[in-house]
């Protein structure tokens, strides 16, 4: 490729800090943050699997860590993150069809994603508590 002149200060399109924070903007940011968090959460999940494949001692250690108070807090956060990112993904699928992009529906879907993720996470842990106790 030929050298592109870089000395000219070209006008830049306005970025995040220019705009008043909006719900849909926050949802976009949270979708990305949850994605990055899940990226590292998968590593923990795989470490647990590898421990289970290694030896009874390694499995017991991994189970003790994931079953500890701190472990459960991380798992609770992980489950909300996963559910929120999944609902956000479903929102993107709806947008892919060309629907829900208008001012009314994108707000409705943003609120449904927040409410749905919280409700489903609580429901999930109630089910876990019932099944496991």
């Amino acid at each position, binding site marked *: 490729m*030929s050298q592109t002149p870089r000395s000219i200060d070209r006008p830049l399109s306005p970025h995040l800090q220019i705009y008043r924070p909006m719900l849909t903007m926050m949802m976009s940011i949270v979708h990305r943050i949850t994605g990055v968090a899940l990226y590292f959460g998968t590593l923990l999940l*795989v470490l647990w699997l590898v421990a*289970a494949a290694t030896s009874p001692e390694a499995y017991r250690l991994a189970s003790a860590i994931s079953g500890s108070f701190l472990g459960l807090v991380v798992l609770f956060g992980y489950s909300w993150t996963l559910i929120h990112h999944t609902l956000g993904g479903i929102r993107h699928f709806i947008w892919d069809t060309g629907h829900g992009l208008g001012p009314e529906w994108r707000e409705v879907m943003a609120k449904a994603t927040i409410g749905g993720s919280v409700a489903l996470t609580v429901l999930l842990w109630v089910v876990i508590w019932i099944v496991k106790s």
Partner: protein
Amino acid sequence: MSTPSGTSMRTARRRVSGLGSARSGTEHFWMQRVTALANIPLLLVFLGILIAVAGSTYEEAHALLGRPFVAIVMALALISVTNHMRIGMQVVIEDYVHAEGPKVVALIGNIFFCAAVGLAGVFAVLKIGFGG
């Protein structure tokens, strides 16, 4: 960019069709959507498996994780999820890491990380599945 439009007989539409300047067309977008779609049912089953295994002994865990259906779903989920991770993190790196050196290192590190996590997970599932 290097050849001004007009020196080529090809139209802009023709140059872009299929590939575009990045030479990869819409494959990136498409794979993000395909893996996202696959992740939904796979992770639903995966969550159920995790809940069933939680708190069980080593022997119980191996008995459950070793079932063919369970092992196949877990392996598929790991493949789909780690590919989705790789594609997603690539976009994040391209958006925030602008210096050429660190960007290339991060992009390669991302591929290595996702490949290692995916393979380690699938190997663990197979080892348990084959009774190792």
